[in-house]
């Protein structure tokens, strides 16, 4: 696709299993098949068949990796909480636990609650998985492996990911259940709100790379954008946590408050689809973070090696993606759930103004850097300005917190002296 290692050509190549396996290692199978089929079929048909093969491969892989992700998450969370986690089904490490769970879900009765909006109720699980899968079309797995390098790549991701709000609302509204409806409204408030800082923070990598092509975003990262623009990366990570509805932002399915939120009425595989979509989109957010902030498949020029470069790039990408995914799990095991007003305040009163200012600063600083400056010089200037903005923001936050604390303590002291409220007094004594 990018011609990095495509040696396959020739008018009448015939299929050869050795060459085919070699092309698999080089990740140039599609170029190979194109060369083999050339002449037998029309170019349009070849492209269509290759597209279908690519889609089936990626989607099947994603559906299967979720089995592993669920196991991984349970195992890691268990370790954080000083437990063992799944350890019975499938050997010492409980590797087949998720497979057993899937089999159980498959044999459950499919129910539709009375009074539910049948179309919305049954369409929602399909749509959420569709949106979760469709986002992967533009993720560059390796130098020559990407579904399609759209000219609006990152923009496409935002467009598709925001469709997930609609599916959650469909599920919550269609279920005819009050908990589900509460969960759906919370999800609208949360997902819609956190999309703003996410969109604004994603402007910065685009500004730095001068492109929305995903591959060019990777190629622009001589210095990974995590180092060039750390503040943008942090804002993106926090909004990604909220967008995927994970702890500490799992208000849309808060078990202790609204049972299971928008999917409370779902059972069997329909419930399984919501679970699947959550994990696929979390993995996607990790992959997106790895692509636009950690340099994707790049690692010190390793991917430029002659034969195994693309394969190494693929491995590097996966290592980065799972490293980010591990942080997602880590956060889940560490932080408690926030309240809805705290969640919205954090977004509208901190992250949105901060990301607006950051866009301003990066845009102005970028224009002030002389045109001939090298990559490292540019990266350094951006790093300094990012850290400065972050420092000022945290300092303002610290002062605000100190003020709030002073007000609270004053109230406690007053209550203590008048001794009118024994409860507050007891609290102050601690």
């Amino acid at each position, binding site marked *: 696709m990018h011609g990095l290692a495509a040696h396959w050509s020739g008018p009448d190549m015939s299929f050869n299993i050795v060459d085919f396996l070699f092309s698999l290692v080089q990740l140039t199978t599609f170029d190979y098949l194109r060369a083999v089929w050339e002449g037998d079929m029309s170019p349009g048909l070849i492209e269509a068949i290759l597209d279908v093969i690519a889609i089936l491969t990626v989607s099947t892989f994603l559906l299967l990796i979720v089995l592993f992700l669920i196991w991984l998450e349970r195992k890691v969370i268990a370790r954080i909480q000083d437990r063992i986690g799944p350890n019975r089904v499938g050997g010492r490490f409980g590797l087949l636990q998720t497979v057993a769970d899937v089999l159980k879900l498959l044999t459950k009765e*499919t129910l539709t609650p009375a009074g539910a909006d049948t179309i919305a109720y049954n369409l929602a699980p399909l749509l959420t998985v569709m949106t979760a899968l469709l986002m992967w079309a533009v993720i560059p797995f390796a130098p020559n492996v990407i579904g399609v390098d*759209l000219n609006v790549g990152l923009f496409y991701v935002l467009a598709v990911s925001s469709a997930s709000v609609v599916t959650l609302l469909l599920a919550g509204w269609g279920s005819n259940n009050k*908990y589900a*409806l509460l969960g759906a409204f919370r999800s609208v408030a949360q997902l819609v709100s956190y999309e703003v800082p996410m969109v604004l923070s994603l402007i910065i990598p685009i500004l730095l790379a001068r492109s929305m092509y995903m591959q060019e975003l990777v190629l622009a990262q001589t210095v990974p954008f995590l180092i060039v623009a750390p503040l943008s990366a942090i804002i993106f990570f926090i909004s990604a946590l909220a967008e995927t509805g994970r702890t500490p932002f799992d208000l849309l399915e808060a078990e202790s408050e609204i*049972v299971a939120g928008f999917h409370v009425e779902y059972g069997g595989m329909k419930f*399984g689809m919501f679970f699947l979509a959550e994990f696929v989109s979390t993995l996607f957010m990790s992959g997106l973070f790895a692509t636009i902030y950690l340099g994707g498949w790049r690692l010190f020029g390793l991917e430029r090696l002659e034969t195994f470069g693309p394969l190494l790039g693929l491995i590097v990408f996966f290592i980065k993606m799972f490293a980010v995914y591990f942080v997602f799990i880590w956060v889940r095991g560490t932080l408690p759930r926030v309240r809805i007003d705290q969640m919205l*305040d954090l977004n509208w009163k901190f992250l949105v103004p901060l990301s607006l200012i950051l*866009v301003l600063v990066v*845009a102005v600083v970028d*224009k002030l850097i002389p045109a001939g400056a090298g990559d490292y010089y540019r990266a350094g200037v951006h790093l300094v300005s990012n850290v400065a903005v972050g420092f000022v923001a945290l300092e303002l936050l610290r002062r605000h917190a100190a003020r709030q604390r002073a007000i609270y303590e004053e109230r406690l002291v007053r209550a203590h002296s008048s001794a009118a409220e024994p409860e507050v007094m007891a609290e102050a004594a601690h």
Partner: protein
Amino acid sequence: MLADWQFIGIFLALSPIFPAAPVIANWLLGPRKPNPLKQQTYECGVETVGDTWIQFKVQYYIYALVFVVFDVEAVFLFPIAAAYDQLGLFAAFEVVVFVLILAVGLGYAWSRGALEWT
């Protein structure tokens, strides 16, 4: 250009298969004995009272409205960012003005108490 979107089109057409297959398998494999008691909506064990589809807290919609303003305007920043090289110093100034207009919108919503959760 259009060939790029062919992939998305095929993906869009094929993607319902992946969630539909397990759901249909579930429907085929699972028991099918519905009864009115089973189909009641869940509400912690008691029967549901009243209609679910009611007028809802307006606060949620206000956030949605603020979001629409921001998202639509943020969209305009993407092409500017992608073509920043071809734009002069004046364009940078325009970006500043544009973002400040956005900030004024946020400040207005904030001062009117639209961002307070009550």
